[in-house]
């Protein structure tokens, strides 16, 4: 088994080392940026003072710290997180494109398929090492991205957050698996490298867009009414909100578009009256994040497994040339 693992890595040495390099660069950069964010030493009350109404805001002390923190957060961490959203797709494609497509184009498929007899057995032998490498590499990236994501929202104190959803954590591994399966299936179907690279890259783009749409759809489907603190302004609480509701004294619940001021009792300042109404948010809040994470991992994992199953079916039926 170890021998087949070693040979599988040797056969795809370029792809494996490219993936290792990519993951190393992005992950190490993530950890460096995290260290730089921590290094600013900005107290949380300086970054989100509205959460701490009882703490006096020291503008002289806080402003430069806040500026430095948000500059690193928006520029460097933002860039790394963007890279993190692309990384699993690139690594998945890199490791998957040549695995079957390369064997067919390179003329080795007839030799190894004749030797192995069972194509399923051959594919498992070639697939498992790459899958192990993919999961191991992306697990490193997932941990590094989680660490950076946590450092970007220190006001969450390590609690889950929808900030950067889909760009960190186990979802990184699941997205990589989906891209890997996609590239494998396209490669097995086309049997040529260039068409596989072009087509699977295009489809991976749809996979990325699909991931975003999945989040939006999930949020819309899961959104519920959430009691919010008095300081709530729709930001920096780790949730994802699609609207607010105002609870009127007569029991009605109305949304943002309603002309609330017109409903104020005669002789009462409308602004003060609106400010006194109970407000709730509609959306998902930070504690809902694990449920989203599960949905993300399950969806992309299922997509990846479906493509892997398709690859087995294609390899079983197709010609080796």
């Amino acid at each position, binding site marked *: 088994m170890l021998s*087949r693992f070693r040979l599988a890595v040797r*056969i795809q040495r370029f792809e494996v080392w490219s993936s290792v390099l990519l993951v190393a660069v992005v992950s190490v950069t993530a950890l460096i940026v995290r260290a730089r964010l921590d290094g600013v030493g900005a107290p949380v009350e300086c970054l989100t003072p509205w959460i701490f109404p009882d703490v006096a805001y020291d503008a002289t002390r806080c402003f430069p710290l806040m500026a430095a923190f948000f500059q690193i957060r928006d520029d460097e961490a933002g860039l790394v997180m963007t890279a993190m959203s692309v990384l699993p797709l690139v690594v998945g494609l890199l490791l998957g494109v040549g695995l079957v497509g390369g064997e067919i184009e390179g003329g080795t498929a*007839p*030799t190894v*398929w*004749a*030797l192995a*007899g069972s194509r399923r057995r051959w594919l498992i032998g070639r697939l498992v090492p790459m899958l192990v490498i993919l999961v191991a590499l992306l697990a490193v990236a997932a941990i590094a991205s989680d660490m950076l994501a946590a450092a970007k929202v220190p006001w969450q104190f390590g609690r889950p957050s929808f900030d950067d959803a889909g760009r960190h954590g186990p979802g990184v591994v699941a997205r990589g698996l989906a891209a890997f399966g996609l590239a494998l299936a396209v490669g097995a179907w086309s049997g040529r490298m260039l068409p596989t690279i072009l087509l699977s890259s295009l489809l991976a783009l749809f996979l990325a867009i699909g991931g975003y749409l999945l989040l939006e759809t999930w949020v819309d489907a899961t959104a519920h009414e959430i009691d919010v603190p008095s300081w709530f302004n729709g930001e920096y609480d780790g949730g994802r909100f699609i609207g607010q509701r105002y609870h009127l004294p007569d029991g009605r619940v109305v949304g943002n578009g309603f002309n609330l001021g017109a409903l104020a009792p005669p002789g009462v300042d409308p602004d003060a009256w609106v400010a006194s109404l109970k407000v709730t948010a509609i959306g998902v809040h930070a504690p809902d994040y694990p449920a989203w994470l599960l949905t993300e991992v399950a969806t992309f994992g299922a997509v990846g497994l479906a493509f892997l199953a398709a690859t087995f079916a294609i390899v079983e039926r197709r010609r080796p*040339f």
Partner: protein
Amino acid sequence: MPETFRLPASAHRVDDASMDSAVSPRAPSPSAALRAQGLTKRYGRGRRAALDGIDLDITTGGITALVGPNGAGKSTLIRCFMGFERPTRGFVTVDGIDPARDRPGALARIGYVGQEAGLYGRLTGDEHLELAAGLRAGFDRASAADHLDGVGVPRSARTAELSGGQQAQIALAMALGTRAPVLLLDEPVARLDPLARNGFLTTLRDGVRARGTTVLLASHIIGDLEGVCDDVIVLAPAAVMFHGSLETARTGHAIVPATDDVAPADLVASFTGLNGRRVSLVRRPGTGDASLDDVVLGYLAAANASLGAE
């Protein structure tokens, strides 16, 4: 070994009627290592058949040359035996196993070398043997390594750095290492220089003779086959034109000037020989002295004549 002369149905219509008398379909042999029955392979609807109703029995043991021009269907036939192509009609068997029904079972009885060596440029010869041992149960790695040592192929060098002949030897070592009872070789020497071709064929002959392996060796380089093969199959586009022993092929035919009077029943075909003169290949059972080149050219000319008349 009895010989088989077969022409496509169209040939009987257009060629001299006397050739009908030479057609003697071979009865199925109980010891056939490779069998094709009514084998037709057509790529896509409306296209010409790559193989058209082929009947073939290759008995166990011995090296059979499968010769024919490009496009004759040599590779298609081998691919059908390997289960890489599914017959449009008819069937093939390898040691009695139909690869269309049990491909792993058929492949377990086959060692294969293709026209391209089919090796990984990044792996060494030793790693290829290691790979083969991991893929095929019972792979004889030691004998495969001995084979490579015997022909002077450096086992520790990456195959991308080796010559075409050395790569072909690695592919042959992998096929021999399977200890499969059947070897299918799909033009493995087509791209090799004469010296490498000779080295390959010599080691093939020495490697399989003692074991009683059945070898089907596709080639269009006829001159290389005479000292190696026992039987020959002449495959013209889509049909078997001749199947018999090399000895029968040579002693059963003669070349005469095309101007000679030949009984229509004895005439295979008239064609322009390698020396540029117009000659005829005629049947002279037991008294002929044709070269294998002549026999192959004559039967291919017969096939061309029948195709041209269609």
